[in-house]
Every structure is written in structure tokens, then in C-alpha cells.
């Protein structure tokens, strides 16, 4: 029997973690990536990575609390066992990264320093300067380079994944990829394949993501039969810096240090920001949320900025933007507290934010949804059974998904600094699962599969490319991409209305029709980026449909998915009795909503459009409760909810006591 091989697609944090762990376990790995893995999108992460630590523990923190914050932040849409396991592994993962040489910031005594991030009360976030993602990625990249010198890892860093190879039994037997330089399309037979291909921000046109984050790889898996889950959950960051080429993140700390968000009261005011006197500025967050002011929770800030611009108050004549103003703060203070992030603004915008208000707008940031994958519970811990073949395996046997490409860890909304953790965690645990899977796969190796299986797939991709090259028409793929981004950003991000999403879906169909008539401006058979982009666009359109359809069907508000039509208004009465009654009604409606919608959205590809069904969410460890952060009447809802849950559990016990006595 030939040696069993594993192919890993993608060398961001997730792919590299998987590769090094597989190599350590004795496997030979082919690592494919669109570019040198050291340039993967993971380098962009600035803030840090979460884990419980010695200090937070003494403040009352625990892995369980990290787990609770994560599922609460995610509005309970995640299956809980994998999330619990991830939080349990957090401290071990930070230790490992530390051993691998990551230059985490240090306390005077030489321990790792931690800071506080959104969505928690504890300083759980380890960080390395303002470039944590880069530092983590490099540490793993270096390990994988070491494995390369040991001939355990073979890198193919100019290889574009075109699709999985699935045999007649429905088992994954490898992949087809194209050399981005020679444009040669070939098969990589493999007994297990890992997709670690990241998120899909580019579907929304400009985003905070890197240019490789088209989601095309995930779309190709989806088109080949992998289920796509919770696609409608897309995180938008409230303060990004719009620019001609992309959106760049402006850290929340700018508002934390006193930054004020405003627009001119007169939407037609054409004066420059500094000429507009204070009385003629509309500090809309401070006015609408006197209690929180500019530090309203992320999703609220995002929605408010978005709607103010849609109402015509944008300060950018060519697009949407509002001012984020720091100019009232003394320069010395700004330099002391915010130098790093202000330099970024200066470097890319060529404007000094100490003198001029910054222009910012919400930007698509993170893909919570992704390729569906499974898991197996360890009944003793309630977490994962490490080494079970099902962990991270998609519905196609032998095909695994990890990192931002999967859907497993963040539910309806991701907490800051939790993504790096989930990427590395999934990467580390997928290796024992693959080894178990390969151990069970006794029959034969992929290399023994009939060569016709691979030849056929290669031909199929060659023919598709041929069709694309020879399409007749005059459609410009960049125009289609721009329109795709516009419609998705306008109607399927922050504020969603069914009517608009339905329109977007028909726009997507129109764009798909037009896509059939694209004209390529480059016929080269050498390093043809234009061809690659155009092909990816076709895949992006299909994934966009799954995202939009999921959003259309989900009639509720949950995490990043906000539909004003289905919002349950918070209690607002002034007298206590009415207030409690309203809160009770609120909680009843909330419970009914959960019964209907606390479900995973699962999209299956069909040429005519995605077919959507729903799966139960495993909430076996922490019962879902209202996520009232920033909601009107939060306090009374929390109180009433507790009372109602207590009533329910006594009722349950009584019922169980009479009917469910042990036989």
C-alpha cells in the first residue's frame, strides 16, 4: 500500500497549525497556498488572542467563563461542546505559542502581559505589540519551514485550489489545483484534505480582509457538495477607514480614549470639518445614547453610523463616512496613548488625525459562517472527544475544514481576539482526527484510486477554464464585482430588510447571467491573475446567494443579523408593574423566537440556487438566555428571565419526577 498523504489548502494560522501537527505525527503533508504562506491574511490581526490566565483566574475567571462569554457573545448559535473544548485549550495554546518564540508583551517580571477586549470583564488577551497575528503566523510558519527541511512538508505556494476530488462513494480523494504561474492544472491525490482557506470579505466588495479573501475556495467546496452553514452571519466592524483600495481597521481604542463621532447637522454643509462650529455638529451617538455616548456596543455603533449615512448625512461626497474626531484631545495625550494606531491612519491616509477628524465607516470584517463540519462529544467532559474522526470533518468523508473557513466557533457574532484562538485550536485538533480517520480507511490509498478519477476532474476544470476564456460578451468582471459588493454591502450587512434582500437575490441572479458573458482582457497562459480573479468571481456569486438567502429566511435578530422588522422592543414603561409585565412579555417572545430560530442554517448548493434547511444547535452545557447588552430595559429583562427560568426548571423537575421515574 502506498503512503497515505494529506493535503492542506491554506497556510494561515489554521492551515499552518494543522500542518505542523500532522508532520509531527509522522504524516507527509502537501501544503497548497495561493501565495507564500507567510503572506496569508492572518498577518493582519492586531489586537491579540484570548485565553484564561493566572491573573484572570484570581479575579474569578475560568475556562468556563471564557466559554460562557463566547457563546453569549455569539447569541448561543454555536454548538457548545467544541467551544468549551477550545476555551479549555486556550491557556495551553498560549503556552505553546510562547514556546515557539512569539514575542508577547511582557510584565516587568517577565510574564506575558494581557489586556481587556470587548465582550468580557477579564483581561484575557495576550498580545505582541500591535501585530499579534503577524507574530503568531510567523512562529507557525517557522515550524513548518523546519518540517520542510525534514521532508515532511512539501509546500506548493503558487497553487490555487480549484475543487476537491470526490469518488463515486462520495469520499474525498484529493484536490485539483492550478499552478498560478504556469497555469497548469493538476490533481493532488490525498487520503485526507483540509480546507483552511479563510473568510470571504471580498464578496462585500471592499472589506478589512486581504485580497485573497474571496471565499472562492470555500465556494468551490460548497459547489462540490459541502454544506455551508450560518452564511448570513457576517461581522461588520464599526470603525474602518475607507480608502480607494480597501478598508482598514481603526481600533476601538480611539473612541475609548475620548474620540467623538459626528456629522454636520446640515447634510449639505460643504465646509471642511474644522470650519464647522461645535453647535452645527451632530454628535448622534452621544445624543441618542446619552448613557454610553460614543462607546455604545459595536453592533449599535455600526447600525447608527450606517443609518445616518443612508439618511444622507455622509461626510464623503463619493461614499459613506462619518467623522471620528480626536482633535479636541491634547496632542501629548494622543501621542502617549494612541501613537500606534494614529500612525496607521497617517501612513495610509496622508492626514494627521491629531489635526483633522478621521473619516470612518463600518467595514465587513469577519465571516462567522462557513463550511459545515462535525464533532464528537466526550461524555465525561462535555467537550470534544479529541481524536474522533468526525471533529472538523465536513459532510464529505475525508474533507476537513478549519479556521475562518469553518462555521464552528463564533455563532452569530465573534468576540474580539477569539478568532486567532479558534484558528489555531482547530488546526491543532484536526491532526489526531485525521490520523484516526486514516487509520480506519483500510481499503486503499488515494494513490490506488483509478487514475481516471483524477484525470476526469482535471479535464472538467480545464473545460471550465476553456469556457471562461471563450465566453462571448462584453461584461467586465470588475464591474460585476463592484456591483456584487455594492448590493451585498447595502442590503445584506448591518441593517436587513426582507424586501431589500429579496431584491439582492434577484440582482445576484442577474449578475450571474451577466457573468456568463464576461470578456477576459488577458488570454495569457502564464501568471494570468485576471483569469483567476474572474473565475473566483463566479464562485463568489454562488456563495453570495447562500449568504443572502440565509439572511432572507431568518426572520429574527440574532448577533450580527439584525432585522428591524423582527426586533422585540425592550420594555420602556415608567411604573414598575407595567415594566415587569412588559419584560415578561419580552421574555416570552424571546423564548418563542429561540424555539423557532435557535437553529444552524445549512445551505446546500443547487444550480438553481441554494436549498436551505435548519439543524438543532447543541446547547447542552449553557442554557440560552437573552443577550441584552446595550438593550433598553436590560436589567429588568435579566431579572425576569431568571425568575422565569427558575419557574420552568421547577416545572420540569416536577414533570420529570412524576413521569420520568427510573424504570
Amino acid at each position, binding site marked *: 500500500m502506498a503512503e497515505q498523504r494529506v493535503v492542506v489548502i491554506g497556510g494561515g494560522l489554521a492551515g499552518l497549525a494543522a500542518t505542523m501537527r500532522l508532520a509531527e505525527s509522522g504524516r507527509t503533508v502537501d501544503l497548497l497556498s495561493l501565495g507564500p504562506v507567510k503572506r496569508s491574511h492572518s498577518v493582519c490581526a492586531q489586537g491579540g488572542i484570548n485565553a484564561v490566565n493566572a491573573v484572570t483566574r484570581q479575579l474569578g475567571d475560568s475556562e468556563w467563563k471564557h466559554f460562557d462569554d463566547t457563546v453569549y457573545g455569539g447569541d448561543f448559535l454555536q454548538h457548545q461542546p467544541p467551544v468549551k473544548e477550545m476555551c479549555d485549550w486556550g491557556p495551553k495554546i498560549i503556552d*505553546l505559542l510562547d*514556546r515557539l518564540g512569539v514575542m508577547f508583551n511582557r510584565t516587568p517580571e517577565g510574564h*506575558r502581559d494581557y489586556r481587556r477586549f470587548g465582550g468580557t470583564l477579564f483581561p484575557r488577551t495576550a498580545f505582541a505589540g500591535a501585530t499579534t497575528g*503577524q507574530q503568531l503566523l510567523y512562529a507557525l510558519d517557522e515550524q513548518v519551514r523546519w518540517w520542510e527541511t525534514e521532508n515532511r512538508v512539501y509546500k506548493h505556494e503558487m497553487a490555487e485550489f480549484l475543487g476537491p476530488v470526490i469518488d463515486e462513494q462520495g469520499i474525498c480523494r484529493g484536490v485539483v489545483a492550478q499552478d498560478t504561474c504556469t497555469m497548469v492544472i493538476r490533481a493532488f491525490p490525498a487520503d485526507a484534505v483540509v480546507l483552511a482557506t479563510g473568510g470571504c470579505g471580498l464578496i462585500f466588495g471592499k472589506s478589512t480582509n486581504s485580497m485573497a479573501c474571496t471565499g472562492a475556495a470555500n465556494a468551490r467546496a460548497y459547489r462540490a457538495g459541502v454544506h455551508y452553514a450560518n452564511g448570513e452571519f457576517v461581522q461588520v466592524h464599526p470603525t474602518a477607514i475607507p*480608502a480607494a483600495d480597501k478598508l482598514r481597521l481603526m481600533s476601538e481604542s480611539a473612541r475609548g480614549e475620548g474620540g467623538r463621532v459626528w456629522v454636520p447637522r446640515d447634510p449639505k454643509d460643504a465646509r471642511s470639518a474644522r470650519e464647522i462650529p461645535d453647535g452645527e455638529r451632530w454628535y448622534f451617538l452621544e445624543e441618542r445614547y446619552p448613557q454610553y455616548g460614543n462607546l455604545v456596543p459595536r453592533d449599535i455603533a455600526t447600525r447608527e453610523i450606517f443609518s445616518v449615512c443612508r439618511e444622507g448625512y455622509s461626510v464623503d461626497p463619493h461614499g459613506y463616512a462619518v467623522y471620528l474626531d480626536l482633535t479636541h484631545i491634547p496632542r501629548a495625550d494622543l501621542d502617549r496613548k494612541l501613537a500606534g494606531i494614529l500612525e496607521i491612519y497617517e501612513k495610509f491616509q*496622508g492626514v494627521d488625525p491629531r489635526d483633522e477628524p478621521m473619516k470612518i465607516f463600518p467595514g465587513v470584517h469577519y465571516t462567522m459562517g462557513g463550511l459545515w463540519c462535525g464533532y464528537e462529544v466526550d461524555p465525561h467532559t462535555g467537550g470534544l472527544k479529541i481524536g474522533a474522526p468526525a471533529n472538523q470533518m465536513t459532510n464529505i468523508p475525508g474533507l476537513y475544514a478549519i479556521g475562518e473557513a469553518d462555521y464552528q466557533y463564533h455563532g452569530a457574532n465573534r468576540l474580539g481576539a477569539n478568532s486567532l484562538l479558534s484558528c489555531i485550536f482547530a488546526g491543532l485538533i484536526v491532526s489526531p482526527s485525521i490520523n484516526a480517520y486514516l487509520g480506519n480507511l483500510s481499503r486503499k490509498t488515494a494513490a490506488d484510486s483509478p487514475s481516471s478519477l483524477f484525470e476526469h476532474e482535471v479535464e472538467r476544470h480545464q473545460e471550465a477554464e476553456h469556457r471562461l476564456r471563450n465566453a462571448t460578451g462584453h461584461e467586465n468582471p470588475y464591474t460585476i464585482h463592484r456591483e456584487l459588493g455594492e448590493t451585498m454591502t447595502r442590503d445584506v450587512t448591518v441593517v436587513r430588510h426582507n424586501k431589500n434582500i429579496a431584491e439582492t437575490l434577484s440582482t445576484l441572479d442577474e449578475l450571474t447571467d451577466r457573468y456568463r458573458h464576461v470578456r477576459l482582457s488577458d488570454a495569457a497562459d502564464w501568471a494570468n491573475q485576471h483569469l483567476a480573479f474572474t473565475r473566483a468571481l463566479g464562485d463568489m456569486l454562488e456563495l453570495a446567494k447562500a449568504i443572502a438567502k440565509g439572511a432572507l429566511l431568518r426572520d429574527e435578530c440574532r448577533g450580527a443579523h439584525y432585522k428591524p422588522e423582527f426586533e422585540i422592543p425592550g420594555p420602556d414603561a415608567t411604573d414598575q408593574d407595567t415594566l415587569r409585565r412588559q419584560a415578561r412579555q419580552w421574555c416570552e417572545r424571546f423564548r418563542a423566537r429561540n424555539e423557532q430560530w435557535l437553529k444552524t442554517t445549512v445551505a446546500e448548493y443547487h444550480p438553481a440556487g441554494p436549498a436551505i434547511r435548519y439543524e438543532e444547535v447543541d446547547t447542552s452545557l449553557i442554557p440560552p438566555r437573552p443577550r441584552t447588552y446595550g438593550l433598553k430595559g436590560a436589567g429588568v429583562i435579566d431579572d425576569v428571565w431568571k425568575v422565569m427560568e427558575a419557574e420552568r426548571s421547577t416545572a420540569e423537575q416536577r414533570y420529570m419526577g412524576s413521569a420520568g421515574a427510573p424504570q
Partner: protein
Amino acid sequence: MPRFVTLTIQRQDRPETRRYWQTFCIPYVEQMNVISCLQAIAADPTTADGEATTPVAWDCNCLEEVCGACSMNINGRVRQACTALVDALLEENPNEIRLEPMSKFPIVRDLIVDRSRMFDALKRVRAWIPVDGYYHIGPGPRISPRQQEEAYPLTRCMTCGCCLEACPQINNASDFIGAAAISQVILFNDHPTGKLIAHERLDAIMEPGGITECGNAQNCVKVCPKDIPLTDSIAKAGRQTSIHAITRWLSR
């Protein structure tokens, strides 16, 4: 504000074909950088003379100056295209922006070059921490804030290649590994665990193509987009190799 931006770009379809120049004229938008100019050309590849052509090929990913992909010569100076703001470039030269690929690496196409030699150099100098394995065996070594502050700048090297491009010692006649890899030797040799194989790294940079090839022109440090103190690293590496050579000789 200008209405148009003129870019003159050196092109090459394939490694073996000849070079040629093309000029493009694209509408000016506020806060443009070289990347957005190239994006505009990709969307409508027409030369200034109105001739249809192929889109210009170039490398990029993060557009935040952390991935190191988009290095190129812009107005004759090597730098990252994402932080090359058009307004600032037009102050350097109001007539045009000139783009050329880096010259010290094999050309793939247009502005794309092949920097694999840099990744190979990282293998040669064993730029990693030699850990026992990935099982949980507790935290890493204690590191003082001062050590962290010294190491951190070196960790930011994104293998962009600007330092090699600017270095006169990198040429067809030499196989100098360049400043970036030498700086990584210092990063890992100063790490408490990395130190354990410091001698292997020093052996590697004492071979042909290693530190002795450095001509001390100090260009590298001037062009590094991450302000990495490359000349300090090279000086340190010089000292470490001298000591290493003596101990090696004494223990013969």
C-alpha cells in the same frame, strides 16, 4: 487636484521575453495609493494612447504593510505599493509615477518577482525555535520587557525583499543571503530557547554567501519599511561569528 494620474510601468510578459514600457492615464481619486492605481488599470487595461492591453500583473495581499507582498520600485525607490500614496508621489514627481519590478529577483511577470531565495535563506540559517514538540509542557521561557522590546522590531520582518533590492552586494556574481536573514539569526540567537542552536546558525552565516559578503553599504536599513535596525543586527552577527570562530578553532 489633478484630474488624471499618469503611470509608466515596466512590463514583461514572461521570464524569457523582452521588457517594454507602457504608460497609463487613470482618473484621480482622493487618497489613492499605487495599489488602487493598479486596480484601476486591471479593471480597464487601456494605455494612455487608448490601446487595449493586458492588465498589469502585481503581487499584493493585506494592503496594510504587514504581508510584504507588494514591494516594487516606485519612482526609482524600492518600497511597498500599499503605503505609496499618490499625493506624496506626485510631490516627488508631478509628471508621472514610475513602476518597475525589483531587479534583484527573477521576474515572473510584469511587477511580480520570485523571492524564493529569501525563504531558502531562512531555511539555511535555521530561523526557528527548536522545540521538543507541540504537546503541552508548560510556558515558554521568562522574557524581560527589555528583551521583548529589543526582539520585537526584528520579528516584524515580512520578507519583503526591499533590503536585498537596495544592497549592492546582491548581484549575479554573489550568493549573499542578505540582511533580512542575518537579522533573523540575531532574533533567534538572542531567544533563550533559540540560543540552543545558535552555533548552527553561526556556522551557516560563516559559509560562502554569509556575513562576510556584507559590504557595509548600509542601504538596507534605509529602505526597510519596518525600520528594522538591520545594521545593528549585522554588527551583532559579526561579533557573534568572530567569537564563534575563535571557540570553534580553540576546540579543534
